[in-house]
């Protein structure tokens, strides 16, 4: 038996799982009814066509009739005189082989007794009629392919190709010799006839399998989305508690930053914002950290720099960072909403253009939803931490990060990386110009930043930079995220 498996040749007779045992037996019963009954009628069309003679025909008659029909011999009418089917391939026919085909009247083990097989629940109306009443039997004899099609109607309706029917028939044991009984040269031409005869007029499209949902990877991601916010809140609270002891504050802040980073990784590592494998980019993570660090420290440093500082410690802006950390949760939920809705639209739309048209408002709606949540969170954090409520920069940064992550998660990682890099470098450049303008003769360097800050305050620099970057990514996202290929399920590589 091990040889069977090891040889790999056993796959030839594989694919047997298509047949369930009871189904097979049912088919066997049907075979006896529809096929052999019909053939028997055809073979003995002469005097044997009266019901009484039919009833008298012993069970041994059927194999003989089948063998003669199966061998494709023309005179199939001599069913009773046909040689026993077993002797056909014997090289040296032996006198003992001619068994006495005397039918045993007590044969309770009759191979396919029509009467007993007829009440099978699988028998449809047609072959049932063919088995029970005589005129119907004759009709079955006229069109045996119809009975075969009825038996394999699921296969026929499902088939997209004659070859598919041929493969299915072969898997059900139909051979060329069986096909010869249907007056066909081989299974292929039989399958072609069956394929051509499947009614296809005005059929309703068959019901479709539901589109599989997003890869959930467990339901934990929805709760884990709260992790960065919780950690950040704890860190801010810790810093506030130990205020006054600079060393302890630094230690708590460092631990808090580390914890928030790890929490962020965990939260984004699963769920709808998970980056597809193979697109991990260290640099993008660094740029993101830099942008967040600027949101925390940058405004104060810029203001101090323009003021010829910094003189000692400049004020930290904890509220925007806390707000952003808390906004992770709505971001992930919004991304989930987007993917679920988009997939639903994917299933409903007939064409790519239609899909793009329907996804675009969805994308913008989800974006607006997220921005509302972010604005509310930022206002809440500002109120709780008693910080000025100018959080336009943090809002722009939130939008930028959302789009960067969304695009990465949907497979276009290149544009977000470039835009994040550009935004970070621009912010860094703004800081550098401010401090470089202190060099003699280079005071003109700070003019653009000074102008902006004079007009709208130090928060305007990240607002402008991140806002522009987010706008660029928004435009990019409306082009790429409305493609169907962006919402394809990741391939189930096994």
């Amino acid at each position, binding site marked *: 038996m091990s040889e069977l498996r090891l040889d*790999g040749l056993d796959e030839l007779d594989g694919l047997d799982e298509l047949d369930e045992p009871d189904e097979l037996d049912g088919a066997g019963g049907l075979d006896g009814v529809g096929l052999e009954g019909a053939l028997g009628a055809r073979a003995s069309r002469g005097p044997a066509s009266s019901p009484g003679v039919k009833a008298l025909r012993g069970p041994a008659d059927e*194999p003989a009739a089948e063998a003669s029909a199966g061998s494709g011999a023309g005179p199939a009418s001599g069913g009773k005189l046909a040689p026993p089917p077993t002797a056909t391939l014997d090289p040296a026919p032996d006198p003992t082989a001619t068994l006495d085909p005397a039918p045993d009247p007590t044969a309770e083990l009759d191979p396919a007794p029509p009467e007993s097989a007829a009440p099978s629940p699988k028998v449809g109306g047609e072959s049932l009629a063919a088995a029970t009443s005589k005129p119907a039997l004759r009709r079955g004899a006229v069109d045996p392919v119809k009975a075969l099609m009825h038996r394999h109607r699921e296969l026929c309706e499902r088939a997209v190709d004659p070859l598919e029917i041929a493969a299915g028939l072969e898997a*059900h044991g139909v*051979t060329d010799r069986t096909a010869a009984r249907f007056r066909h040269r081989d299974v292929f031409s039989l399958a072609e006839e069956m394929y051509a005869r499947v009614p296809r007029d005005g059929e309703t499209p*068959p019901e479709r399998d539901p589109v599989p949902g997003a890869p959930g990877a467990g339901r934990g991601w929805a709760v884990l989305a709260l992790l960065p916010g919780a950690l950040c809140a704890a860190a801010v609270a810790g810093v506030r508690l130990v205020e006054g002891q600079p060393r302890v504050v630094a230690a708590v802040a460092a631990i808090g930053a580390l914890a928030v980073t790890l929490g962020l990784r965990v939260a984004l590592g699963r769920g709808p914002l998970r980056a597809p494998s193979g697109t991990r980019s260290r640099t993008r993570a660094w740029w993101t950290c830099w942008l967040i660090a600027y949101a925390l420290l940058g405004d104060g440093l810029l203001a101090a720099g323009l003021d010829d500082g910094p003189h000692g410690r400049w004020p930290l802006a904890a509220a925007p960072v806390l707000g952003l950390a808390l906004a992770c949760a709505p971001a992930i939920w919004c991304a989930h909403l987007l993917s679920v809705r988009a997939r639903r639209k994917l299933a409903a739309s007939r064409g790519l253009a239609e899909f793009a048209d329907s996804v675009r408002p969805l994308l913008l709606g989800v974006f607006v939803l997220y921005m509302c949540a972010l604005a509310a969170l930022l206002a809440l954090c500002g109120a709780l931490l008693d910080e000025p409520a100018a959080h336009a920069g943090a809002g722009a940064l939130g939008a930028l990060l959302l789009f960067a992550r969304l695009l990465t998660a949907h497979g276009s990682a290149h544009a977000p990386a470039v835009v994040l890099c550009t935004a970070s470098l621009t912010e860094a450049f703004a800081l550098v110009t401010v401090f470089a303008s202190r060099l003699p003769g280079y005071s003109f360097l700070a003019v653009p930043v000074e102008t902006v800050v004079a007009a709208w305050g130090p928060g305007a620099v990240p607002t402008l930079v991140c806002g522009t970057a987010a706008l660029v990514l928004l435009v990019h996202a409306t082009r790429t995220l409305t493609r169907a290929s962006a919402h394809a399920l990741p391939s189930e590589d096994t």
Partner: protein
Amino acid sequence: MDNRPSRHRLVRIRSSRCEPPGERRLPKREIGGARVRIGLLTEGGYPYVSGDARLWCDRLVRGLERHELDVYALSRSERQEDEGWIPLPSHVRRVRTAPLWRAEDGGVAHGRRARRRFAEAYGELAAAVCTARAGGLAGEAAGGGSEAEADRFGNALYALAELARDEGGLAGALRSEVAVRALERACRAPGGLRAAREARVPDLLTVAAHLERALRPLSLDWYEDDGLGSVDLCHAAAGGTAALPGLLARHFHEVPLLVTEYGVPLRAHYLGASGDAPVRALLAAFHRHLTVEVYRQATCLTPGNTHARRWQERCGADRTKIRTVYPGMDASRFAEVGEAPECSDPHTLVWVGRIEPTKDLISLLHAFAEIRRAEPKARLRIVGAAAGGEGAAYLGHCKTLAAQLFPDEADGVHAVGDNPVSFEEIGDPAVPDLAEAYAAGAVVVLSSVVEGFPISLVEAMFCGRPTVSTDVGAVVEVIGGTGLVVPPRNPRALAEACVALLRAPERRARLGAAARSRALELFTVEQNVAAFRGIYLEVVSRAPVRKLVLDDTGEPLPFGAPAESRVPGRWTESRLVTGSLGVAGVAGVAGLGLVTGRPRWALGEPVRATTPARATGVPPVPPATATGEPVPAGEGAR
């Protein structure tokens, strides 16, 4: 049925008696032999421990020790890769593997021109796939229409392959919006497949993902001059995906392709297909086109049985290039049993196999009931394990039925009873191995309703046991005239045949002997290997690879690949062996097949090109013989 005699080319040159013993020549010499470098292409197969058909491939490889083999294997899963390889013989010079289960190039971004090329080629491929056939299959019609359609598909495929070779991997592009859009356009085009016209966006995405997986071999780096370009012959161990690299090697380097199919991948695809109708229609069309293209381009097709042959002919394969080569099996295990047919119990029937619903044991049990009525001493032994949960349920069903049909019997009032039907497994005390299982019975029975290539029947034939089998699958082809064949699902006919054999011991012996001799002639490993050896030589002699060797100025070098390079074994003087071994070994490791088999004056800075037109683009191959004296080539790198 293909009953050609095995293709032995072995001629024994006997030394005449007058020769003194010292001058006797070697007893064995192969006439017309040549050393062939074979690229064996497998998919989820040969070198892997868990691969399909690896026993067959292993026997073939070990039988070809006079040739050189490069194995190119595609693995199917990570688990398969982790399980490692089976030990390889020494004349396998190189094994290159690639995973099919993972796209290797996520990050290749193509330029604008490459994107346009891709869009054109993929659009053409999609259009060829979606075009409805006018008439029957390619083989039936064989008219200009199907020919042009096949050409269209092939050209698109090769255009994609060239793009992949020039610009790097296609995995990203094959899943991109460009590909999906091309598919949509092809589906909506007039004259397309009826089922494909209703394709929705998810269907298009599924098809694109599947095509990406199916076309992964295009992105491999196997098609260089020192890869598949350096072999004389590609032998694909299966059709479908495994043959795709061979198809490309034929396109790029004119390497002849030999495809062996023991199963039909297209048929397996049809049976295993799932999903909505548009998806199945598109994928079936793609696989059918691929199969047709493989059959068109293959130099020789070797189906394992008539069933596979019929499918190949149906899919347009030219009959003149189809040779049926039966799978070889190890006959030595059954030698002892086969030589002693009288050791069997004359009243015992044996059934051996995997227990599955398609084996129709129910029918066998009913038949046995009739046999018992005629021959009360008859016993039935069913040997085999259930396959899967379904098989286990079926086995339980069969056991219940056997218990109902046949009450336990005893010889006398005081003896313990026993059921005439026994269910056993290989390894039980009564049945220690497979040969013993066959040895126990006077007649071996096969009652399947569905069967491919019936291995248990071949084993029974090796054991010299007469068989009674149902007329399914390749049974008639295997059994020839050496056993009884009855219609499937006909217990009465089965019973009659069994009774006839049980009552006629002489006939049993005659049929058994005939079966054994037939099996020994047709189904042995030696027959299989010899057939392939002959086919290799024939293919290579008919379609030699024109390897043009260029010198450093780009001029073709006459006699750069001399005929001597094909001479098997050692043809040089023995004193040069030591010098050449090292160099040839280096060349073998570096995969520079062109260096071996070249005379010494041809060893300069050679440049090899398949065609002169492409010669300018081929980088010069570094000289492998930089050090030491140039050596005569022709030494096989062993």
